[in-house]
């Protein structure tokens, strides 16, 4: 593993939506405002500062075929994952040819590199058509890999994404989770928490970007994720309106909200811009003292994990 922060490339043809993704997720740009983004001609990076610091690098979009240069060789030695963005509203055969070039290169120079294909702008497609598109793209990419006899050298995943809903955040969450070596410990903590406190679903969120670093092992339902994410907005926005104290102030932010179907949402601020967000039934919320006690334990566990992580990195950096 390289000693520096994990790095993720964002690649894709021009106008596929790379900059839009970067701006919406990391700079809070309104999705509609992305219409005015200009074409990016140089590599542009953005840093996620969270439990794991990750660098996202947007490479300038290519027009057609992927052509490796000595520069690419150097870049690809340092990368830890690659996101390839395909515009699903457009004719995508060009994009697939371009992707195939990249995959062949990866197979040769960086076998095993994680490649995440974002089938993007799916907001314009009907539900059925989304699935058809996904099936078609997966099929074509896999056929090409088999033809080139490299299907075992690359590890591929596919995601349907759009900046107009939470799908882009969810896809990126899965990408950063794969780059967090402590993921099993984090998941384990959340699983224990859920079991012992009667919590239905727990997410460890990066508050600024709205991605989640970990969740318990129960399945993620996109609606639950959306509500939890919107709940963070409410808490943070209200607090900003009335809180004039600085970040050094004593207590971590804590927010609960009750819905009329008996669901209770719960948020507790953690270290490094992280927050735990839970969804539980009102019956469990009645044992709030227990929930808070267990949450404190998770907070401690998280701090310890992070301290250990930093310690292990110091020798590498010097």
């Amino acid at each position, binding site marked *: 593993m390289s000693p520096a922060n994990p790095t993720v490339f964002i690649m894709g043809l021009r106008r596929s939506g790379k900059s839009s993704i970067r701006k919406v997720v990391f700079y809070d740009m309104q999705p509609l405002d992305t219409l005015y983004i200009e074409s990016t001609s140089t590599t542009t990076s953005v840093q996620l500062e969270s439990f794991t610091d990750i660098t996202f690098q947007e490479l300038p979009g290519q027009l057609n075929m992927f052509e490796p240069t000595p520069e690419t060789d150097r870049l690809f030695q340092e990368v830890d994952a690659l996101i390839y963005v395909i515009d699903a509203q457009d004719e995508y055969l060009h994009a697939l040819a371009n992707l195939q070039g990249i995959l062949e290169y990866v197979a040769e120079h960086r076998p095993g590199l994680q490649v995440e294909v974002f089938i993007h702008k799916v907001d314009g497609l009907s539900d059925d058509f989304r699935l058809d598109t996904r099936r078609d793209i997966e099929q074509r990419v896999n056929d090409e890999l088999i033809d080139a006899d490299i299907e075992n050298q690359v590890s591929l995943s596919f995601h349907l994404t759009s900046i107009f809903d939470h799908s882009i955040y969810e896809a990126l969450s899965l990408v950063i989770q794969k780059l967090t070596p402590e993921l099993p410990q984090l998941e384990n903590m959340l699983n224990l928490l859920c079991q012992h406190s009667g919590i239905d679903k727990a997410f460890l969120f990066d508050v600024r970007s709205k991605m989640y670093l970990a969740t318990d092992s129960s399945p993620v339902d996109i609606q639950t994720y959306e509500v939890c994410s919107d709940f963070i907005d*409410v*808490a943070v926005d*209200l607090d900003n309106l*009335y*809180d004039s*104290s600085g970040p050094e102030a004593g*207590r971590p932010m*804590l927010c609960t909200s009750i*819905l009329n179907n008996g669901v209770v949402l719960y948020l507790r601020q953690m270290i490094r811009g992280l927050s735990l967000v839970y969804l539980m039934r009102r019956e469990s919320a009645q044992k709030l003292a227990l929930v808070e006690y267990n949450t404190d334990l998770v907070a401690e566990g998280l701090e310890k994990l992070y301290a250990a992580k930093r310690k292990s990195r110091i020798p590498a950096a010097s």
Partner: protein
Amino acid sequence: MTATSSRRKLLLMGRSGSGKSSMRSIIFSNYSAYDTRRLGATMDVEHSNLRFLGNMTLNLWDCAGQDAFMETYFTTQKDHIFRMVEVLIHVFDVESEEISKDVETFALCLRQLSDYSPNAKIFVLIHKIDLVQPGKREEVYSSMMQALRETSKVYGFPIQGYATSIWDESLYKAWSSIVCELIPNMNAFESHLQHFAKISEAQEAILFEKTTFLVISHASYKTADMDPKRFEKISNIIKTYKQSCSKMRSQFQSLQLRGPGCTIIIENLTSNMFIMVILPRLEVQRKESHINAGDEDIVSLNIKAARKTFERLEMDKAR
């Protein structure tokens, strides 16, 4: 007054595409700003009866802005349209290429109103302000308002104006003033809320109508360094959250926030209102524990105690 006095007629006027149906759908039908792109042009007059604060009905006439319809408003339909109007909301599209024609239409409306409803209150909304560069908004708004004031003076109507957009909280400010204009016992709401805030040792208490989350009244004991747009921002924040809850087929019921420097409580006050109470930062003594149970509980008890009073006020307003 007659038995129908709690039914209030509001006219929504403005050229086609100016955004009338969009704002109506956002404020009263829980649409998000994105959803409005699905709206088609309105045909003729679309009536909606919206219950507000329980026993008051807002009878909103969304008058289609296409010329063909407009003409009939001032001729064959005029006494139907302009009779018994309590509020006229005239929407101006900042991007309109025929401003002078829009102002003319406005003048025609005022003329009819001066005959049929001389006591009507007039609101003008300079809408889609998001399309103007931020630095120029103030100037565009003032010059529009000046022209409109000139026009309305002729008919003896004072006007209230707002710059609005569906893409930010400005819409909530405008509509909050519009509906407050229709509540006769506003002062009583205000003084009771002030009393409530005082005994709860709150820095601020705010009343919201339940479905629209428009601000009805507020009592503030600390205003220094406060964001002057906070009321409409809260409406916007909670409205968005309500939409999110409805995606889970559920409804927002209450919220408690213990921030590093303040405590916020939002609860049902009556079946038609929510109350939001903001407690200031409690210095030193409770710092060691982030759970200062107690504050919230006392406020919750106060809210329960205040419930009866405010329910009575709600009844009163129909008289």
